[in-house]
């Protein structure tokens, strides 16, 4: 690779737009023009443009292109819009398989939506791939621009070619005023007061401030990369735990995939009361507006977790009233209030009666979650529970069975052993009714009293070790954004050539502010100056 030599004698790397030493454009057609210079990346050679030979270079160049990055952003954007037209599969409101739901609910368009995979867009391979490619693009683009920019800014000199100065967007030419030396000292002082870094070489000076704001975008990109690494970390097993546990009042349950047990000391739902809100503020429809879900939770650690299944030895480690927005936290385990089944039936309160005489023989209680196999009613009478179907239904061949292990529709077969029925009298017992064995004259019947109710709380179990990384990424990203957008990199060049003083200014944003600053400084030094603002499109405006 041959270097490109500038008129000033400096040898520049291939691809350089503005000479590293004097700022003069290297391309002949730019040099001849009079439009403002493109100051992006200080005219330094961007690495990607320099070489384009091997496949590595081609891949590199692909990812280093902002144009391609913007295309990828736009594709992700459009795809995301399409992804919100219908609910995603995880947010389907009814328990139906996706293959049926979309067509049934949204007709033909829904079917197409499903077939194209938009129902699971955000975890589809191509969407994730695009996000990852944007991530790669972030790394490559940043490296590709930040290094040359850094070098160019570090190398910059005080003196520049006249062509460089007269073709800045903000510029002025003044004939050398009287006592120029002391005036320049004055200017230097004023600029320093405005927090400029001033470098002086004889009759020329370069005042610069806020250079760090140029690093803002790259720091932001680094933050985003850290964020993406955090997001990727969640895919590694052990970094992210997503589980669920339902706990009855008073019950202690194992927290899945952890050595912990959680006990609910009571789940409550609070509703808004009149006192909670100011009077006369739409109170009529306050009925049933939920104020709070709360689980009094105790977390235990099983210190005997070595052999699974062995009797747990529980040690209380944390206690917290879990409400929405206030999870129980212990180390990196978090339990969130998430679901509720209030007033679920926990136990049936029964009375055994003699149907013939109407006598009440005795009471018993059937715990639906842990029924006994025998209930002693009195000295002579016991009830044996022969069968229990927590969620009763018939199989196809008309055999009783259970649909699920949850007591949603409990059914029992009970057998009463008493002096009158030494061989037992069987009956089916359902919620609120019973059915004696067919063809028998039954003696015993059952009466139902108010059942015991319990509340079941649904706790979401989460562990997210990547969260600190994600937050750190966000923080760095914000830092970069603030640096880049709330500060500006301003430079003012003042250079004396024979009888003329050339003034030029450049900023990466807020030209209005820079213009006022230059005018102000010159006014203070009482040097009349008429600034010319070269239009960005090349036209001149005063």
């Amino acid at each position: 690779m041959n270097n490109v030599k500038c008129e000033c004698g400096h040898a520049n790397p291939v691809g350089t737009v503005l000479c590293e030493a004097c700022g003069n454009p290297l391309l002949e057609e730019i040099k001849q023009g009079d439009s403002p210079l493109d100051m992006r990346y200080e005219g330094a050679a961007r690495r990607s443009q320099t070489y384009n030979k091997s496949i590595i270079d081609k891949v590199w160049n692909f990812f280093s292109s902002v144009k391609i990055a913007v295309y990828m952003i736009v594709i992700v954007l459009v795809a995301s819009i399409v992804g919100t037209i219908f609910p995603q599969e995880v947010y389907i409101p009814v328990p139906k398989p996706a293959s049926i739901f979309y067509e049934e609910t949204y007709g033909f368009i829904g079917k197409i939506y499903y077939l194209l995979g938009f129902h699971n867009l955000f975890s589809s391979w191509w969407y994730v791939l695009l996000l990852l490619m944007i991530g790669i693009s972030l790394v490559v683009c940043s490296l590709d621009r930040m290094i040359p920019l850094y070098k160019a800014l570090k190398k910059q000199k005080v003196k520049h070619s006249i062509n460089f100065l007269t073709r800045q967007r903000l510029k002025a030419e003044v004939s050398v005023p009287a006592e120029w030396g002391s005036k320049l000292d004055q200017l230097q002082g004023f600029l320093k007061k405005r927090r400029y870094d001033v470098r002086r070489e004889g009759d020329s000076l370069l005042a610069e401030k806020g250079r760090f704001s140029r690093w803002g975008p790259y720091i932001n990109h680094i933050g985003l990369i850290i964020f993406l690494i955090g997001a990727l970390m969640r895919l590694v097993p052990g970094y992210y735990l997503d589980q669920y546990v339902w706990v009855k009042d008073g019950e202690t349950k194992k927290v899945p995939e952890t050595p912990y047990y959680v006990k609910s000391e009571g789940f409550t739902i609070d509703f808004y009361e009149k006192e909670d809100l100011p009077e006369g503020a739409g109170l009529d429809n306050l009925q049933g507006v939920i104020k709070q879900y709360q689980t009094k939770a105790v977390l235990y650690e099983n210190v005997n977790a070595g052999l699974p299944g062995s009797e747990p030895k529980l040690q209380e480690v944390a206690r917290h009233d879990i409400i929405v927005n206030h999870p129980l936290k212990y180390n990196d385990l978090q339990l969130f209030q998430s679901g509720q089944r209030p007033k679920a039936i926990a136990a049936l309160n029964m009375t055994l009666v003699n149907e013939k005489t109407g006598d009440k023989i005795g009471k018993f209680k059937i715990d639906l979650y842990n029924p006994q196999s025998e209930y002693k009613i009195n000295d002579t009478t016991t009830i044996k529970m022969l069968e229990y179907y927590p969620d009763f239904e018939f199989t196809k061949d008309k055999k009783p069975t259970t649909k699920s292990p949850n007591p949603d529709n409990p059914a029992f077969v009970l057998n009463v052993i008493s002096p009158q029925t030494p061989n037992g009298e069987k009956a089916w017992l359902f919620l609120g009714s019973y059915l004696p064995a067919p063809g028998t004259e039954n003696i015993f019947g059952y009466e139902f009293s108010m059942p015991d109710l319990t509340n079941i709380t649904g706790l979401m179990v989460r562990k997210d070790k990547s969260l600190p990384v994600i937050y750190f990424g966000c923080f760095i990203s914000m830092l970069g954004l603030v640096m880049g957008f709330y500060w500006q990199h301003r430079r003012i060049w003042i250079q004396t050539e024979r009888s003329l003083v050339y003034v030029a200014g450049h900023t990466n944003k807020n030209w209005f502010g820079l213009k006022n600053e230059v005018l102000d400084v010159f006014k203070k030094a009482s040097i009349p100056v008429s600034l010319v603002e070269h239009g960005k499109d090349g036209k001149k405006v005063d």
Partner: protein
Amino acid sequence: MNRSRTWMRLIILGVIFVGISVALYNAFIKDTAAVQANELAPDFILKTLEDNQEFQLSKQAGKGIVLNFWGTWCAPCREEMPALEKMHQEFKDKGVEVIGVNIGESDVTVESFRDTYHISFPILMDRKREITQLYEIGPIPTTYFIDSDGVVKKIVIGGPMAEKTIKENITQILPQQ
């Protein structure tokens, strides 16, 4: 200069590529199941339905074990019970035992089920579903064929299994006489 630049680029792209691959491999391709074929079955201890005795997997060395996770609410589980029972009868004297693990049901439910289906093999009661979680049981029935050294030889997820399937897998775990 040119060479080192290409190397630099190669290294950077390579690091990114490897990083992403590792994450994706871990997430989608790598089998992260707790129990895998040709590895030791995780040890556990549970009480039996019959006599409330403790059953510990690691103490069964020398016997082949057919570990069947089931629940009474699951139709395929019910359907394969007779076949399992038959195989239990056939192989219990040859050193292979069928062990059922009931998932979180009450004694009454399981007892009546056992009687209906005439099950004679031991049933372990996983009341807290701890072992179900340990083995990361998804759909049931799920059956593990464990040899006399405690190594899982075969995992059958779903059912019902035909007698033939069970038999074939049992022959793999028959202790050598």
